[in-house]
C-alpha cells in the first residue's frame, strides 16, 4: 500500500518535472511550425498541421546561415581556448605558490561580479583602437577573457582534488611543468574538463551583450539574430521560435555526448571546497 503510494508520488513528480521543464520548449516548437499569430493563441493550438515554411525561409537566408556559422565558430574556438587557458591557470594556481595566488583567485571571482556593462564599454573603446570591432578574433578574445576566470576557478578546484603525489612521481621521472599537466594530470581530470567545457560552451553560445556591442553585421551570432526578430513594430514569433529550436540542437548534442562526464566532472570540481 505504502509502496503503491510512493509509486504514484514518484510518477506525479516525474510528470510535473517533465511538464514544467519541457513546456516552453514544446511551445516554441509548436509556434515555430505555425504562423506568427499562433503565439497569441490561448489555449495554445497544440494540434495542427505543421508548416515548415519558417525553417525553410531561415535556411534559405544567407544572413541567418552566416550567424549560425558564426555562433558555431565562436563557441567552439572560444570554449577550446577557455578550457586550455583555464586548465593551465587552474593548474598553476593549485600547484605552485604563485606570489599573490589567493589574491588572484579572489580577483578571478570578483571579475565575475562586475556588471557586464562596466566591462563592455571599455572593451568597445580598446577594440576601436585595435580595429577589432566586428571581427571574429575580437569576439573570441573578449569572450575568452570574460570566461577564462570561471574556467580557471573550476579547474583550480578540480586539480586541487587530484593528489599531488601524482605530480611528484612524474617530476621524479624528470617530467616538466607542461608534460606533467598534459600527460599526468589532464587524463585524470578529463571528466572535469568535459564538464567545464560544456558549461562554458552554453554560456558562450547564449552570450548576448558582448556580441551585441562588439559585433557589427559581419559576425552576428544567434542570440543577437533572435533579438532582431523583435522590432518596435512587430514580433516575428515564428522566426524567434524556430531559431531558438535550432539553437538548442547543438547544445543538446553536446550534452548527450558529454553526459557521462558531466556529473562526475562537476562533482570533481564542486565537492572539494
Amino acid at each position, binding site marked *: 500500500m505504502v509502496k503503491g503510494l510512493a509509486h504514484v508520488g*514518484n510518477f506525479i*513528480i*516525474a510528470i510535473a*518535472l*517533465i511538464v*514544467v*521543464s*519541457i513546456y*516552453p*520548449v514544446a*511551445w*516554441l516548437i509548436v509556434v515555430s511550425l505555425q504562423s506568427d499569430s499562433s*503565439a*497569441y*493563441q*490561448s*489555449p*495554445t493550438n497544440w494540434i495542427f498541421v505543421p508548416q515548415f515554411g519558417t525553417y525553410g525561409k531561415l535556411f534559405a537566408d544567407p544572413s541567418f546561415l552566416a550567424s549560425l556559422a558564426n555562433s558555431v565558430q565562436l563557441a567552439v574556438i572560444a570554449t577550446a581556448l577557455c578550457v586550455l587557458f583555464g586548465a593551465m591557470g587552474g593548474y598553476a594556481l593549485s600547484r605552485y605558490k604563485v606570489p599573490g595566488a589567493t589574491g588572484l583567485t*579572489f580577483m578571478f*571571482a*570578483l571579475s*565575475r*561580479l*562586475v*556588471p*557586464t*556593462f*562596466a566591462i563592455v*564599454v*571599455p572593451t568597445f573603446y580598446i577594440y576601436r583602437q585595435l580595429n577589432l570591432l566586428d571581427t571574429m578574433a575580437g569576439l573570441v578574445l573578449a569572450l575568452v577573457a570574460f570566461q577564462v576566470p570561471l574556467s580557471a576557478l573550476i579547474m583550480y578546484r578540480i586539480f586541487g582534488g587530484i593528489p599531488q603525489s601524482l605530480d611528484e612521481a612524474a617530476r621524479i621521472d624528470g617530467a616538466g611543468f607542461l608534460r606533467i599537466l598534459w600527460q599526468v594530470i589532464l587524463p585524470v581530470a578529463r571528466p572535469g574538463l568535459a*564538464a567545464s567545457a560544456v558549461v562554458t560552451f*552554453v554560456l558562450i553560445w*547564449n552570450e*548576448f*551583450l558582448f556580441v551585441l556591442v562588439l559585433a557589427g553585421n559581419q559576425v552576428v551570432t544567434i*542570440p543577437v539574430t*533572435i*533579438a532582431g526578430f*523583435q522590432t518596435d513594430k512587430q*514580433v516575428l514569433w515564428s522566426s524567434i521560435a524556430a531559431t*531558438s529550436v535550432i*539553437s*538548442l540542437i547543438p*547544445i*543538446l548534442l553536446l*550534452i*548527450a555526448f558529454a*553526459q557521462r562526464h*558531466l*556529473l*562526475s*566532472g*562537476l*562533482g*570533481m*570540481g*564542486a*565537492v*572539494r*571546497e
Partner: protein
Amino acid sequence: MLVALYLSFTDTNLSNAVGAPVHNVGLNNYASVLTSTDFSSAVSTTCWIIIPAVVIEMVLGVGIALWLNRPRRYARGMRAVTLLPYLLVPVVIGNFFRMFYSAQFGQLNYYLSLVGLPAHAWLTDPATVRWAVVALEVWHTTPFVALLCLAGLAGMSPDPLEASMVDGANAWQRFVHIVLPDLLPILGAVLVLRAMDAIQLFDEVYVLTGGGPGRLTSVINLYLYQFGFRQFQIGQTSAAVTVIVVFLAALALIAFSIMRSRSRSRERNSGLG
C-alpha cells in the same frame, strides 16, 4: 576598472562632442548616486528579486537532485529533460514568459481558468510582478543548482547511508544527519555561484517588463543600462559600478574567508592534508 574609477570622478558623458572638456567633479557623482532614489530602488529591487529566487532555487534544486539521484528507470532521460530550461537563450525565455503571463493571450490565465481561478494581469499588478520575475529566474536556473547538487551526491560514499538504513533511520533523519552535512560544501559553492550570477540578471527582465511598472522591476543592471548605455553618463555610471563592486567585493570577501576557515577546520578534523 581603474579607468572606471577615474571616470567616476568626472562628468564624462559619451554623447558629448569629441574633445569636449571633462571636468573633475570630485565626489559629486558618488553623492548623486547614493542619494538617488533610482539607485536605491534598483538595489532594493535587486535584493527583493534575487534573494527569494536564490532561496527557492536552492530548495527546489536540492529536492530535485535528491529525487533524481535514486536509481530509477529513465533516470538519465529525466536528468537531461530537467536540464532544458538552463539551455535556452535568456532573451527567448523573457519573450516566452511575457506571452505566458500576458493578461490577454496568457496561457497561465487560461490554465488557471480551467481550475476556476479568475484571470490576472501578472505583469501590471504591483503585488505580482516581482514574483513573476522570481518565478522566471527560478525556472531558468534551478536546473543548474540541481545539476551541481546531483554531481555532489554522485561523488558521495554510499556506506554511511547504508549503515543508517540498517539502524532504521527514516528518510528525513537520513537527509538531515548524513546527506545534508556532506552536501553543505557544495551548497556553499552553488550559493556563491548563483548569487554572483543572479546579480547579472538583465536580458530576461529587459524583455519581460523593461523595468516597469514604475520602478518595481528595475534591477541594478537595468539601472546601469539606462544610465550608461542609453544616457551615456559614464561618469555617474562608473560611480554606481564602483559602489556596487565595492559592496559585492566586501560580501564576497566575507563569504570567502568563512569558507576558507571552515574548510581548514574540516581538514583538521578529518586529519587530511
